[in-house]
């Protein structure tokens, strides 16, 4: 059984299938976006009190850790960081073979009465976030839930929006947005891939 892996495309170069890619955020852009998001979270929350950051695996988790580092350096104390796997809450669970679970780590203080910031790499149809809200419901009752994403690529299928966005990225449905992050991958980059064929069903985005 293969390990959980978000994207099947190995590299970003154009290949024989006629696929082309372009970089929309490089490492420095990602750093700047995360710094801004961190400040926006603090501003909105009026400080870091009662904040809990939950990254959605796999790439939401390193993003959450980086945002937590920045918040700690601004506020001078650490905020609880964890991860929230939504696999079992997905609405397409029955449409595919059973999927491997990813780690869920809820900070020891729990989420009751806290302001939870969900963090993911790409916001797309919104179905992952709906699943995450259901998962949170089984874990406790946060005072508020906010959403931070590195990239919002549009094409929402549910009434969900992000509170903090690294970059709004208008895309076509045949394009694929690929986020690579140090810690999971070997480089920091957000790229858009266009395949020659129109068979891609929005693959690659972990919205």
């Amino acid at each position, binding site marked *: *059984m*293969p390990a*959980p*892996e*978000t*994207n*099947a495309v190995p590299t970003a170069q154009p290949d024989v299938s006629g696929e082309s890619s372009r970089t929309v955020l490089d490492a420095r852009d990602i750093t700047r976006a995360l710094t801004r998001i961190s400040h926006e979270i603090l501003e909105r929350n009026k400080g870091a009190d009662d904040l809990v950051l939950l990254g959605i695996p*796999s790439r939401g988790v390193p993003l959450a850790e980086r945002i937590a580092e920045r918040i700690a350096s601004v506020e001078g104390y650490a905020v609880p960081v964890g991860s929230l*796997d939504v*696999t*079992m*809450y*997905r609405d*397409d*669970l*029955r*449409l*595919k*073979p*059973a*999927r*491997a*679970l*990813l*780690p*869920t780590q*809820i900070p020891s203080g729990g989420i009751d009465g806290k302001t939870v910031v969900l963090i993911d790499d790409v916001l*797309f*149809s919104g*179905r*992952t976030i709906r699943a995450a809200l*259901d998962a949170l419901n*089984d*874990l*406790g009752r946060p005072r508020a839930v906010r959403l931070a994403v590195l990239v919002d690529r549009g094409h929402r299928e549910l009434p969900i929006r992000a509170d903090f966005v690294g970059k709004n990225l208008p895309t076509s449905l045949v394009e694929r947005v690929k986020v690579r992050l140090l810690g999971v991958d070997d480089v920091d980059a957000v790229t858009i891939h266009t395949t020659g064929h129109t068979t891609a*069903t*929005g*693959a*690659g*985005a*972990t*919205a």
Partner: protein
Amino acid sequence: MKRHLLSAGDLTRDDAELVLRTAEEMRSLADRPIKKLPALRGRTVVNLFFEDSTRTRISFEAAAKRLSADVINFSAKGSSLSKGESLKDTALTLEAMGADAVVVRHGASGAPHRLAHSGWVRSSVVNAGDGTHEHPTQALLDSFTMWRHLAKDGGSLDGRRVAIVGDVLHSRVARSNALLLRTLGAEVTLVAPPTLFPVGVEGWPVETSYDLDAVLPKADVVMMLRVQRERMNASFFPTAREYSRRYGLDGKRMRQLQDHTIVMHPGPMVRGMEITADVADSDRSVIVEQVTNGVAVRMAVLYLLLGGNEPAGTTDGTTKGLSE
């Protein structure tokens, strides 16, 4: 994974490790306020128990319920089985009721295999112990318990020495454990009096010994087996006292163990026979933890078999990311 879980030997190392990793996630559920996941909502799991069992049946029932499946318990006593209904007719009844998985325990070795491959039912069949043959979920929970204690931080059971001691002849737990532990890279030594080794044990992927005291100092895990007197129709050893003197784990023998060595027992245990009370209640004993882990492992198995439109890992489509 295959559609059925009939033998621990059917699991590849990747399959087995996927079950263990999934069980690790399932286990964290026990610490949460709402011990329930929605993964198997609308699925029906039938517990079909032709033999007495408390912990395995309750464990499967708890596992299925925590995954939100509907559970139907079907035990031989008080059912049409006691009126002479055949396995086939029972199976056809379950099929007509729309069972998605049948968890079966049967006194006859091979009954789950028959159920799975006869074409009587379309559901997944999980072997919960058949005769003296296999008990794969027990082996998985034993491995999971060893893995949590001895393979912390992404390690493996490679090269770990496991001693399985006692009534190997009548033990389906020993056979399943021998197969699975081999797959996971551990070295298994079976220890029993000569009369309690099965015919053909030399074909198993294990070492054998008659001398418990020689094996104990090297072991990382000591698993004691119950002497299954209900299956014994001859005398396999002179007296219970002699058996427990030579093959029982008591405080004196426990002191020969390495510091990290854990003591396991699949239950139900007979205190004073294969294990003394001071060993069973000592810090080394993980016997109670095995029960907790059993629920997590059975949740993992049910989820991986029933959670999608087909079992996990049968195609490349098992990865998370093809879209949402």
